[in-house]
């Protein structure tokens, strides 16, 4: 006993002293519950991310995301009615940053052919993208065949291709393997429609091992059903080179007003200004616009 310092003999050592011992617990809970446990937060506060996040590249969006960016080790669900409304441009700052840090980005079942040139324009290293395509057969190099895709305006039957597509279990299996391995930098997956909740839950569990953002893109009607992913966004076009983002679910208070983000531009600024003015006037004005003097715009 003599060898121990007097303080040790006086009180048993504590691993973590309780925060602000003199304050009542209620006050701690009200003001800073995260000091008790990192995953505790109040409904009107923004939740804290246990891990660091990946900056989305859009300041307005970062301000509304818990932790200030896309979360790691969990699924982030993006709901959109149809591919091609600006979702790749929304994610490109985050994904290209991950590529530049030397990690692999994997895309699962992209709904249409990706253009290597367009991706390069967005800053992607095209060689460092890995595509897992379980829905259609591989296109012979240099001789692309017609692919019936949901991208087309008309609903084209893709019965002819369904014989070549693997069962959807295979694509989920591949996604789960990639998440579980923990060696992939970021994952972007287009999930099959009407996915059962337990399958998504299984993916969410696998994502715990995945040190990076994992985006799953789903159809808009999935918003009616609960999700296992802690972050859920609904994307909708909001004019030329702009995207409306509604945060349907986050670790924090609900956000009433949708965000409007300016995407990396496709159009030149003069055209965009012109279009934005018209877009803000409303769809009715657009209906009437049947003629633009292109020469004056270019």
């Amino acid at each position, binding site marked *: 006993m003599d060898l121990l310092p007097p303080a040790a003999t006086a009180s048993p050592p504590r691993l973590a002293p309780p925060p602000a011992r003199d304050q009542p617990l209620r006050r701690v809970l009200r003001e800073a519950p995260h000091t008790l446990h990192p995953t505790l937060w109040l409904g009107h506060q923004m939740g804290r991310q246990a891990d660091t996040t990946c900056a989305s590249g859009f300041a307005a969006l970062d301000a509304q995301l818990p932790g200030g960016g896309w979360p790691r080790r969990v699924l982030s669900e993006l709901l959109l009615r149809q591919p091609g409304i600006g979702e790749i441009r929304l994610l490109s700052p985050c994904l290209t940053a991950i590529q530049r840090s030397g990690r692999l980005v994997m895309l699962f079942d992209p709904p249409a052919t990706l253009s290597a040139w367009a*991706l390069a324009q967005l800053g992607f290293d095209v060689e460092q993208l890995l595509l897992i395509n379980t829905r259609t057969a591989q296109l012979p190099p240099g001789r692309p065949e017609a692919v019936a895709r949901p991208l087309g305006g008309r609903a084209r039957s893709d019965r002819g291709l369904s014989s070549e597509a693997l069962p959807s279990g295979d694509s989920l299996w591949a996604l789960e393997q990639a998440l579980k391995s923990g060696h992939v930098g970021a994952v972007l997956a287009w999930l099959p429609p009407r996915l059962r909740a337990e399958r998504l839950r299984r993916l969410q569990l696998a994502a715990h091992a995945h040190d990076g953002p994992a985006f799953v893109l789903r159809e808009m009607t999935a918003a009616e059903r609960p999700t296992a992913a802690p972050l859920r966004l609904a994307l909708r076009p909001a004019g030329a080179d702009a995207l409306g983002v509604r945060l349907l679910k986050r670790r924090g208070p609900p956000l009433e007003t949708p965000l409007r983000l300016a995407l990396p531009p496709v159009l030149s600024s003069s055209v965009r200004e012109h279009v934005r003015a018209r877009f803000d006037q409303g769809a009715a004005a657009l209906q009437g616009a049947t003629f633009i003097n292109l020469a004056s715009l270019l």
Partner: protein
Amino acid sequence: MLWVAVHLPLLSLESFAATLPAAAADQPLALIDAHRIVSANAPAQQLGVKPGLKRATALALAPHLTLAQADARRDEEALSAVAHTALAFTPNVAIQPANDAVGAEQAAPDTVLLEVQGSLRYFGGLQSLLQRLQRALVPLGHRLHLANAPTALGAALLARVHSRFDGVDPMVMQRALDAAPVWLLGPGRAHWEALQGMGLRTLADLRCLPRSGVARRFSAALLDELDRAYGVAPDPRVSIVLPPAFESRLELFTRADTTEQVLYGTGLLLDRLIAWLAAQHAFVCRFTLVMQHEPRWRRDSQTPRETTFELALAEPSRDRAHLLVLLRERLARLVLPAPTLELRLHAADIARRAPPNTELFPTPRSEREGLLRLIERLQARLGHERVQCLAAVDDHRPELATVVRPADAQAVCRAHAAVTTGSTAAASPADDDDSTEPAPGVKVRPVWLLNEGEPLHERDSWPLLEGQPLQLLSGPERIESGWWDMRLVERDYFIAQLPDGALVWIYRTRQLASNPRPGWFLQGRFG
């Protein structure tokens, strides 16, 4: 000299059990020879089946007994896998030839000898070497007798009587040999009756007799063998040499109808392959599995005699679990044309390299390996053509400017490693996100492409998409190319906007003599 003898007392039975499906290996099994039981496994012995019983008696005791005959070639393949495993511990490995020359049929050898004097220091002493040897032999699934002694023959003889014998000291070995039964000596087996009649039971009894008399009554070979066992006469052994290519076969006892059964049998062949690889510090790059089918299955002459199935690895490997996962995924996709009777595994393409370091914390190297394995696994299950890479091609026609091709796992991971080791602080070229203008001179392309233009409806020769009018925002950009490969396109491209604001890329074909029906087409969407 210090010899370790690995004796497999149940080799024939175990090598037979390996040819059975997984569920049948725990059933009563017995080997017969000339209508008499030679050996029986534990479940059969519990039912009272003993060596020496007649076939009919054994079947009366255990009606579900599976009977088979020993196969010298089968035993030899199993024993060579044990010898290959032993080669990882010492270069001097010999197979003790079988000496039970009973009748015309030569029994298969069942003992492997290792000279380990030179390896003791490296492996940290005899006990730890024996432990590691036993552990290395576990996957092959044999029951082992281990004995060590200063002479090769002494160790081999003592391994037959003792399940574990430690005789580093020559005196200990001599005493143990003195007490050993006399039937152990090979040539003495022929004179077994005579020796019995003379009241000789142990080797000590035999050694007490005058040498000239023994040599005259029996043979000089018996004396010679006695001398070699006791270390009086020299006993040189020729070490086995690894074959340059691995080849092993497994004849299945019951035909395998499903790939799952094939996979079970392949597991044993993989264990043998790994023993062969470990002996030479090598990793396999590709191997071939040949499944020989039942001939004349359903009297169909179209059925192939065998299915050959090659597995090439992106990264040379010796990991049983990884190889088995790859095989499982590939075999699951395979449709067997007929039941399989025999499996052969062949491997010649190997890479010799230092074994990987075991790492506590993740490093770029371990991450690269993990990535490679992930890609290999995905390729094995989904097929090579479904794991893809993009490449940009210099072509003006958008449908030909991007090529999708099967990914090369090595290339992806090599580039990945290069980036990781390179400076991560390199200034990002695309970081000027503040620019609100696409770079001048660069033609903007949409991310999502339709490989074939989707015809659009028109209203007053104005394009409609999903019944909604499109507003042309930018264009035209004329692409006129491809006259050289007969896929001429003559199009004017526009960026157009849907009423909700999404941007699409459409084109109008030019009205020419070659193209009588001009019209609007959807080419892509700006994702």
